[in-house]
């Protein structure tokens, strides 16, 4: 396996030792961070407009620049120049910190994702556990936002968000654990490596092909994790206004929004890595695109899926959501885990 991005950078600069580690990590982090932010903050909102418009039979932005691309600039100016309204009696600094917690928790997750062409900041042996751990920090941000806003709709949204994350995080992790049984490692590069073997019909042994059931479970649990239909109850715009983000405006709102997008993309990155072979093509011996592009395509495919669900599927009620989580998903994911363990144990 190729060395990680910080090593490559430090050797490029001819640095070694502690200085090399520090410089390499910083430069690498900036690179990866900018990359993800470009995708989520710049391309994301524009693409979301276009995708939703296509689903809902509209045209969306097409006047500002070619394909309406310059709307990104207009949006940025608009959002950043708005007044930051701080409601009375909000619980500061929790209220101010929440947007940062939300946005940064997702960014942290990208540190261990192998994006192809040697772009990976770190490759710890517990990579998968790390991703889930940092992604769940977002729950703390949601509670902070919901509680500190001093708004009843925010409070309801925050409570819903936590209830939902609890109910779906567990099936998510359990399902991922079934993959770990296959791969025999928590290391992200190891999981990708394990999926390069041939499965037959010219396909690689992606876990989405090997265990489609787990893939489906993960996809559904991920929808709940990122709060998109049918599981967008924490925001539920027609029920509780905007849930935990009701009282946020201007820059804070941008951060909230960015955090949400980053989480969708992180979810996409995890699915790409764990089930879709990471930065590789699905066919044995045929690498049409560079690894990094494969990776980006997969992330966007998951993004497209979330937007599709959002346009077409009704939202479930909060009690139904909890019921599906605890009584359905959890049981199914454990069944999947046990089954996988038995099969792997028998074959191996």
């Amino acid at each position: 396996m190729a060395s990680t991005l910080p090593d490559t950078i430090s050797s490029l600069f001819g640095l070694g030792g502690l200085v090399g580690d520090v410089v390499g990590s910083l430069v690498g982090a900036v690179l990866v961070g900018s990359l993800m932010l470009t995708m989520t903050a710049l391309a994301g909102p524009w693409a979301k407009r276009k995708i939703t418009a296509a689903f809902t039979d509209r045209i969306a932005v097409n006047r500002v620049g070619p394909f309406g691309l310059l709307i990104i600039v207009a949006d940025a100016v608009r959002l950043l120049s708005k007044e930051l309204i701080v409601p009375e009696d909000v619980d500061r600094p929790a209220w101010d910190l929440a947007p940062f917690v939300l946005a940064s928790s997702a960014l942290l997750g990208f540190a261990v994702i192998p994006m192809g062409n040697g772009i990976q900041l770190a490759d710890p042996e517990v990579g998968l556990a790390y991703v889930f751990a940092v992604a769940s920090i977002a729950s703390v941000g949601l509670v902070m936002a919901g509680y500190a806003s001093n708004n009843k709709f925010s409070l309801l949204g925050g409570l819903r968000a936590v209830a939902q994350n609890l109910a779906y995080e567990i099936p998510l992790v359990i399902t991922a654990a079934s993959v770990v049984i296959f791969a025999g490692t928590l290391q992200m590069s190891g999981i990708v490596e394990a999926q390069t073997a041939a499965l037959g019909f010219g396909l690689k042994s992606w876990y989405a092909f090997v265990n489609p059931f787990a893939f489906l479970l993960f996809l559904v649990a991920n929808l709940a994790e990122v709060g998109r239909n049918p599981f967008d109850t924490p925001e539920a715009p027609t029920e509780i206004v905007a849930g935990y983000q009701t009282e946020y405006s201007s820059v804070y709102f941008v951060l909230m929004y960015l955090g949400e997008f980053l989480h969708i993309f992180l979810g996409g990155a995890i699915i790409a890595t764990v089930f879709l072979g990471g930065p590789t093509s699905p066919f044995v011996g045929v690498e049409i695109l560079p690894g990094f592009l494969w990776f980006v395509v997969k992330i966007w495919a998951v993004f497209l899926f979330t937007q599709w669900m959002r346009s077409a599927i009704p939202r479930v009620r909060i009690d139904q959501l909890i019921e599906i989580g605890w009584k359905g998903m959890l049981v199914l994911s454990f069944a999947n885990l046990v089954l996988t363990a038995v099969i792997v144990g028998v074959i191996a």
Partner: protein
Amino acid sequence: MSLEDPSRPELDIGETAEGVDYDALEALLGDHVVGRERHRNAEAFVVRPDEVQDALFLLRDEAGFDHCSCVTAQEYEDRYESIYHLRKYDDPTQEVGVVVPTATDDPVSESAEPVYRTADWHEREAYDLVGVDYDDHPQMERILLPETWQGHPLSLDYDQEQPQVVTFSEHANPLNEDQRAEADSDTMFVNIGPHHPATHGVLHLKTTLDGEQVADVESDIGYLHRCEEQICQNGTYRHQIMPYPDRWDYISAGILNEWAYARAAEDMADIDVPEYAQVIRTMSAELCRIASHMLALGTFALDVYGDFTAIFMYATRDREVVQNILEDLTGQRLMFNYLRLGGVAWDLPEPREEFFESIHDFLEDLPEKLEEYHDLVTSNEIFQMRCVDTGVLEPEIAKSYGATGPVARGSGIDYDLRRDDPYGYYDELDWDVITEEGCDNYARVLVRLQEVEESAKIIEQCVDLLAEWPEEDRTIQSNVPRTLKPDPDTEIYRSVEGAKGELGIYMRSDGTEKPARFKIRSPCFSNLQTLPEMSQGEYIPDLIASLGSLDIVLGEVDR
């Protein structure tokens, strides 16, 4: 034919094969009757203000008048008067009025709320606008105007010039006290609206939550009150009133609303409408109904699906076609102002073939589109999970609240004025009244979707009739005097089947060219009253869905 009234085995007291036997009713009421009046639509009994409940109980339980359609209050020089317009859900042509006069210096009469729960809001409105006080009423407060309003705008001595001070301090947070009182309880008070994404306008729901469940909900209306009744009382019958009905239910149901006024005024002044114009009216009204139901479906999908649902845009897209047809016909997309007393404003647009073609195209595409809605919406399992058995409205409760339209028909009440109290050209055409037995949010959606199909049937038949209509026989308006002055003291209550239900109008003339009293019976107003019944004990999302399934338009609730 499908329009036959389902036969009922036994007749109520006072019911004959020809209609209502008012003498028998008078005998039933006995000493309660102190006089009789003859309104254009029905006869009315004058009842003492302290015997209202007794009289109404008799009429409801013994004579079968189970539908309190409307309560009108008005002030004469020497007295106040409340009129209860009663009819039967089984046969709305059987009507009776109960007139309750009260003294000018002390206008107190007994409330009808214990008999008909719908009287709750109607009497509050009467108190608010006219100033009649009702005894034994659960909550005698203003309903449309702010609590601090001085005087009653429709009373005779009301001073229009009087400044009304609605101070900011008093309305900074009218619910402060409520919140403090509940500090030590487990429930949470939350204001849903007046600006909330799901209230479909400016409705304010004072909601008490127990966790996620609704412990209590109370609607606060009046934010969109535009004095429509008073505006109409200041307009002449002939031309100045007709533009306003478009603005009650402004969700493209304009022609249906105009018809309510047209029907009442025409019956009042004995104006005939040429058959050709009736067919055009029927066709355009049903187009409006389709447009209205499409929007109802789209916004209901917004409430259940979320902001970015495709269904809303699909419904808007399909409604757009109807709007274009109506624009060709009336020259307007929303405020049509197309009907005239005695007919319609002008004939179909030339070339007629092209116009018919556009309608045919629309009708041809419609089944496929409806199929798409059934695929996307009604057969979606999550949608069914959300809507089946939520927002349940039992038929008996619906009746006591005076619910009509798709809300009543979704609860299995077979009540449609187009069939039961025929007007226009409906009784000549072949179509069905849709009812669903589900009583829930899902049933109401199904009713609307199927009604679109029925409306399409009606339109198709109308178009065929119009295309064949002999050229020399195309009279669009009858001869109506330029100034219309109905006989003094003519009173009439007439209603039509609007998009949301029974849209009625009460008018009283005083011999001038303007009505002395113009009262609007809005279907949304009565339907909205059922919301607490539907949502108590359910979850917030169900409350929102129930509200969406009622399909209220605040312009019509507040008038």
